[in-house]
């Protein structure tokens, strides 16, 4: 149980899917035009992740290796269709119409398939569910943060409540897709900068997370130069 809890916590911060693993950037950039949209997208993904992780870790032992990816996709698609119908029925219409096509696209979100392949197929159901919830919450956290920042920079409001009331002209770059790239980049840079400073202060060597690590990337052959 303690282990399962640890699995959950690591998804929220240490292995945050957006800020550390850099997975699922398409929904991250496309749906975060406001904080509420980001939060709704994050929660929908969390439900899919927890459900698909549970089922996949249960059936992983009997799925033939050759067709495991299509089988996983079918499982994920089932959960996404269910979430889509439930959201259409019970979520506020404004949220559903804003997220629109991005809900079905959770099927091809790398985080969901990535966790199925890398974690759920190798671990027991309980740990897998907690991993799914943790990853989902990490995703929601990152999306809400990015959404709130974009909403604030573009209109001066957060969760549709205007904080700076004299802000009358929208700054459209932040709410459009290019602004999303810029702001996500700034967040990533800031996170790495502070993590590095903390590591140096503690007298440790800073090892960037695998996704952002210069050494694990083979493009500029940094390994060979050293």
């Amino acid at each position: 149980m303690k282990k399962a809890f640890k699995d959950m916590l690591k998804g929220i911060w240490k292995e945050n899917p957006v800020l550390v693993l850099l997975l699922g950037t398409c929904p991250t950039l496309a749906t975060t035009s406001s904080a509420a949209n980001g939060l709704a997208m994050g929660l929908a993904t969390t439900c899919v992740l927890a459900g698909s992780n549970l089922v996949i870790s249960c059936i992983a032992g009997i799925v033939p290796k050759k067709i495991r990816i299509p089988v996983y996709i079918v499982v994920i698609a089932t959960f996404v269709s269910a979430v889509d119908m439930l959201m259409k029925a019970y979520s506020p219409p404004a949220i559903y119409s804003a997220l629109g096509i991005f809900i079905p696209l959770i099927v091809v979100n790398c985080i969901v398939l990535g966790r199925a392949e890398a974690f759920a197929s190798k671990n027991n159901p309980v740990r897998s569910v907690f991993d799914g919830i943790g990853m989902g919450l990490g995703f929601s956290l990152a999306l809400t943060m990015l959404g709130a920042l974009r909403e604030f920079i573009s209109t001066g409001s957060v969760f549709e409540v205007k904080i700076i009331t004299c802000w009358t002209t929208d700054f459209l770059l932040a709410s459009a897709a290019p602004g999303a790239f810029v702001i996500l980049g700034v967040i990533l840079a800031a996170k790495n900068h502070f993590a590095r400073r903390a590591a140096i202060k503690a007298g440790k060597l800073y090892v960037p997370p695998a996704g952002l690590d210069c050494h694990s990337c083979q493009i500029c052959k940094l390994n060979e130069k050293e």
Partner: protein
Amino acid sequence: MTKLRENESVPVLGAFLGITALVSALVLSPVFMLTRAPIEKMQRETMQKSLKMLNLPLFDNAPDREAKEYISPGNFKVVIMPVRKAGALKAFAVRSVSPDGYAGDVEITAGFDLAGKILAVLVTRQQETPGLGSNVCERKFRKTIFNLFQPRPVGLPPNHILDQFHGKTVPEKESWKVKRDGGSFDFVTGATITSRAVTAAVEQAGKTLRLHMEDFMKGEKK
């Protein structure tokens, strides 16, 4: 079990995939059954909410149940909904879809009185650019930290572009244009396409109503 895991024969793999898909369909069908009624209810509620905002006179029928579909002179899909009180025709709610938005369809719903005068215009479906084209379409009271806990003002939230149609009657022949195209209607700079789409949708709604108003007048005491 390990046998199945290492299995590579095509029929077995095919059967496995088929069974997976079948199970998935079996799981999804009850979810579909369960959510069908709430989805319809949600759509009806959204519909009724928009009808309430159209400044229509009091009515007691379900306008969307008596709706009739037409193709307008400009080839737009137009739905005319008669608004009745105690069986007597009071006004019309007209839905019109312009395909020429910046990002797909722009659907407007407008209230018309029996003389064809526009009571209110509402954009009911759009995917225009947030913060630019969407400003042409949205009627929303802005929440701020100062009025967060105050009750919301009643009535139709203002929108300069949509409000300019109110009280006007769509002409029979000439078409409505925004100022940039030599017409008389204001538009939002940077969102001309959206402004044009909204103007055209309102115009087509009015023209279709002119042509087909008689269909609803039958059996009415004059």
